[in-house]
């Protein structure tokens, strides 16, 4: 990987990268936070010491404000000595090649020979449908059509606030190949709870290995999804075509295209 633009300037050592304020390796970071202590010089000092305790150097309190009732907000700049080896970083990415809708449809026709059944839902108490609609619905997102528009895909969008139990029941009923789960509300990690529960339900039903499951949402990444036992994760800005490409690839790779209805198997 090449770093451009530092002609004449010392190049960064990518095995030991540190934040850059206005000079290489100066380690400068901006921080802001609140403390449950009354506003005043002591609060500033507490903020300073906290940063020192965290190993930051030269903390400069740029601003402190009284939030009232014994709370103080601060904005600070400080320097870190920490470094990171950038050359050793490898990020798990959804592996599917970039294909067009047409190519995907051709692939399904050729290699699958039947409709792929896809169920989408926003689960738990989460009522944010815009994301899953963008992936599932005809209209799609940002000019990219959703899965409903694909020949060779039977797409069912179950909408919002779908309990995991219901999703699993519908998966059995419709003999689904792929479940697409959206989780937008993440407070207190409720998305992790919801997603984990789904995996457990599927395992309990003996279905986990027979279908693909993918999660998506603004705070979901591929790595987190894998961690939670999903097959893929899709973050902000995802388009249906990416999901479709991955799903077809993976169904073929896993030999899940030969159909044995779940319903029958689990009965």
């Amino acid at each position, binding site marked *: 990987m090449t770093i451009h633009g530092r002609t004449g300037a010392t190049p960064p050592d990518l095995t030991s990268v540190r934040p850059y304020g206005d000079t290489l390796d100066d380690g400068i970071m901006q921080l*802001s936070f*609140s403390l449950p202590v009354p506003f005043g010089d002591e609060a500033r000092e507490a903020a300073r010491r906290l940063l020192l305790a965290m190993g930051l150097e030269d903390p400069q309190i740029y601003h402190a404000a009284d*939030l*009232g*009732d014994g709370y103080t907000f601060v904005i600070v700049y400080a320097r870190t000595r920490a470094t990171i080896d950038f050359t050793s970083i490898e990020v798990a990415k959804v592996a599917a090649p970039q294909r067009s809708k047409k190519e995907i449809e051709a692939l399904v026709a050729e290699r699958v020979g039947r409709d792929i059944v896809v169920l989408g839902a926003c689960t738990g108490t989460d009522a944010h449908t815009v994301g899953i609609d963008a992936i599932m619905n005809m209209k799609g997102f940002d000019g990219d059509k959703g899965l409903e528009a694909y020949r060779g895909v039977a797409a069912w969008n179950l*909408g919002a*606030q779908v309990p995991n139990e219901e999703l699993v029941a519908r998966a059995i009923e419709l003999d689904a190949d792929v479940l697409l789960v959206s989780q937008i509300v993440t*407070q207190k990690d409720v998305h992790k709870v919801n997603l984990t529960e789904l995996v457990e339900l599927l395992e309990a039903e003996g279905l986990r290995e027979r279908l693909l499951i993918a999660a998506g949402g603004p*705070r979901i990444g591929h790595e987190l999804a894998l961690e939670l036992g999903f097959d893929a994760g899709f973050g902000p800005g995802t388009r249906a075509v990416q999901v479709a490409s991955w799903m077809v690839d993976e169904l073929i790779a896993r030999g899940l295209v030969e159909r044995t209805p779940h319903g029958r198997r689990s009965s």
Partner: protein
Amino acid sequence: MNPTSSTVHSRLDLDPDTIAACRAAASDIADDVDRFVRERTTVAVERTITRFLGVDDADEDGTPLPNRLVDTLVDAGRLGDGITTPLVNAMRSLDRSAADVARAVTAGEVDLFTLPELPAHDIRDTAERLTNDAIATIRQTRNTRAERIARSTTHPDPLLYVIVATGNIYEDAVQARTAAIQGADIIAVIRSTGQSLIDYVPYGPTTEGFGGTYATQANFRIVREALDDVGEQLGRYIMLCNYCSGLCMPEIAAMGALERLDMMLNDALYGVLFRDINMQRTLIDQYFSRMINGLAGVILNTGEDNYLTTDDAVEATHTVLTSQFINEQLAFRCGVPPEQLGLGHAMEMDPTLENGFLLELAQAQLVREVFPHHRLKYMPPTRYMTGNILRGLAQDTLFNIIGAWTRQGVQLLGMHTEAMHTPHIADRHIALENAQVVMNNLRDIGDEVVFRPGGLIQKRAQDTLARTAELLEDIRRDGLFDALGRGTFAGVRRLPNAGRGLAGVASRSPDYYNPLETALRRALHLDG
């Protein structure tokens, strides 16, 4: 409250006849709904009556006693008669309070429907006395508010509104206080995700919620006390806001009336579109709920702002205005005066749109002029907020400019962290500071600059108004239910017999008795 009034020259050069035509169409639409509603009742309406009669407690499983009581009514197949007669009958027969009767029924000691039936006039006497007490209590709360507001200092509109949403009512109270100290005029306690879909109101103080804190009467009281306390110190009355919309609209309105909430989100259409609540159920609930809000002097907010989170703000602004016209008329039918009517609208265009600010400005001024006496609630950018909190701060700054420029009634402050988390204690501080600085610095801009006659801003507003008039005519012709079925609002389609809560609806039987409704109508000077 606002500089523009119908008698004042329109800054947008709007045609008063078109506005009048819109109102006439909306009035017919509302009458239609009104007729429908008056013939029906719901479990939530009946539970509300028990609350006014003094039932407020839960069984060991946490099921509130109003639910237990009304469930027996439903089980008996007598929802269409209303709860009042059997409940008051039991009170009189057993000479016990409503609360005691509820406990006895819950414990299985008493069966409402096997007790001897006292003479109708006996029941009515007691019921009317108890109802009048309830009305008096509401009035008393309203007076207390009025007295406190009279002592309070104010600043020019808009009022500054922020939310707390920690999930823990005690943390909420802490943060509500700090927000008040920092200058907030209104504190809304956001509900936990999912509460609007449960067909009862949780009981007692709660400390576990996701993305919000349960609306319970105890929770209302805790924050109300915190705000009264801090408000006294500040010499300002701090308003408290919570949510009626959902499956318990009138019950929560009742709790709000008792605990002196000042503002409540109250919109059946929101529940229909965004929570998939059955439209029959929630429109009936809304009706009773809004009468209670009306008498309690609560400012009621509608949810049209949400439409632009799922529909396109450039294309669909006329649907917002259309819905506002309808919501206005629906509220008028419940005796809610314009001053208590916080029609919602929002700044939701993509900030990368060239001249988008001018379109947003046109829309905000349009709503302001069409509803000159209403305490409009102006909602901040949410849809196009991203994790880029610094760009977000600029978006919120632009929003605050428009709020001051068009003198909105209530400015729900944008949070620069909107895309990522419910507000942290510092986020509110940053938002309040931004609003105060910006609004003060541009205070009179609305008076000092004029929209170019025939320019982009005027044309945009006029065009939106014209499209609204057309759409209202369509709905007048086909009815509101049909419009909802066609995906007119928020791009979402809903059918009259689908969605949650339909089971809780019943046609009123000839024996239906609801003295509270009668008393409310009387107090609100509503006909019939």
